[in-house]
């Protein structure tokens, strides 16, 4: 059987909370493009004006959401975005990319 390197692991961090997600290659690029160019994230169309600031440097994306949201709420939003990008929570694995949300 052929061996395929298909996955990328993304670490999502909000303050002290963090969680790893495994998606297909290109998932991080999708999140970067949409947060920078559309100020939007997958599956969150109904959250108007959610993304107010974005910084991107190589393998790290920093996103600031509108409102003063607690860490748990920030993680819940990113959980929706990641799952809607076909990336699912995983326990183990070294992260290739990280997303900081505040």
């Amino acid at each position: 059987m052929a061996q395929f390197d298909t996955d990328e692991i993304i670490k999502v961090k909000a303050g002290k909370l963090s969680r790893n997600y495994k998606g297909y290659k290109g998932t991080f690029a999708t999140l970067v493009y949409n947060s920078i160019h559309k100020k939007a994230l997958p599956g969150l169309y109904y959250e108007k004006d959610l993304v107010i600031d974005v910084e991107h440097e190589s393998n790290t994306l920093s996103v600031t959401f509108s409102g003063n949201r607690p860490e748990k709420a920030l993680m819940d939003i990113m959980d929706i975005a990641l799952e809607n990008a076909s990336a699912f929570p995983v326990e183990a694995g070294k992260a290739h990319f990280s997303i900081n949300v505040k």
Partner: protein
Amino acid sequence: MALKTAKEYLDSMKKLSPHVYCGGKWVKNLLNNKVTRSMVMANAEMYALAEDPKNKEVMVATSHLTGEPINRNLNVARNIHDLDMRQEMALLTSQTVGTCNYRCVGCDALNSLAATTWEMDRDLGTKYNENFNKWLKYAQDNDLAVSGAITDAKGDRKKRPSEQQEPDTFVHLVEKRQDGIVVRGIKVSQSGAIGSHETLVLPGGALREGEEAFALAFAVQNSAPGITYICQYNAYSAEREFCEEESELGNPIYGQRETSTMVFENVFIPWERVFLCGETKYCGRMVTRFAKAHRMNCGGACKVGFADLIIGGTMLAAEYIGVEKVPHIQEKIIDMVRLSETSHACAIAAAMRGREEPKGSGVFLPDDLFGNAAKLNIAHGFWEIIKNAGDIGGGLVVTAPKLKDLENPEVGPMLKKAFASAAPAEKRLKVAKFLQHWAAGLHGAGTWHGAGAPQTQRFMISVLTNFDAKKKMAKKIMGMKEE
């Protein structure tokens, strides 16, 4: 994870938030809207069928990428048996839900992509097949529901894609970036993308040099920013939306066939999900290979499953009014079976005469002639079948009152008196509603156009048939000399 359960699929749908508009409003949760829920429930049944050990041969295949068991909807056919089980899956799924297997177009699209990306990598040294196999492995590992979007809005048919006044009538490239591409445009009559994790987008037809911007094939996630789904809405949608109980409807759980207009507004697709970008020469082959698979499955076997349901309902309608032994009724039922099984036979023949295409790719596609014959036969046959259902079912198929009216203390006793026959009124009205779903529903025109309108099959049959050989045979028998 190799195979998702129906429950796991439904749980995954609860987390998806596609941008869906249906019947005058935005749908935030697909499962809370009666119309969109019917589509999701049909897809859930595709997972449930694969869970049932008695369907294993038909619904479960072995991945050629990993050797693991996978849902057949994500399988690339590697031999005749795979093709045969694929068409049997189309039959089984239609018999089970009485509407679309919404993973069907995606399955046939991925078989076309497996063949055509392999050919492109061989001819052009591209990495499309590698990308496609990686994406497919990911889809198989997570047992994703994958739909397919093929038909562009097309605009003025006299004009080529690049000549259209509105460029968005065809999905096209907006920007080529280092990390991916940006696309926009409109696909129409798309089945089931709203309740699928991913959709495979293919070119809608053959393209020429100079039309590179329209030559695109890619996989996109359900809720990618920039995608809007505008659902079909019709009398059946309204009936479902406003009914008191779905049990009153012709197909209570799975509904009519749900499609949407899929609008792409500057949607980003990373290169890992791009399987063709600009190679116009391969678009015709990609679409033809898709059609080859889809005419055997959607065109042939799937509609045979619908016909089985219609024949069953029609026989019950005949029994409920005591005409099941009348000779002309029996003759019409036999005609329905003849029309239906002829298409099934063509679908089986298309599988059995399938072959590797292109040579060396390892991908098997059905025989073109039999696949087109299956589709063309059922396109016409289906109207005959629903005509006979309406004939035998009687005017009640379209004149029946609401089923719930039987429970009304004022009019219920009148209706029971009016419609009790060889069976109670409730049974008669129930089967009349079921037949209405078919005879006066969306499936007639749907069957006509699904997998391509009959004119496309006529064209393919004219290309694939050796008419000279037939004339020669006739001349030989007649003793006529060759000129």
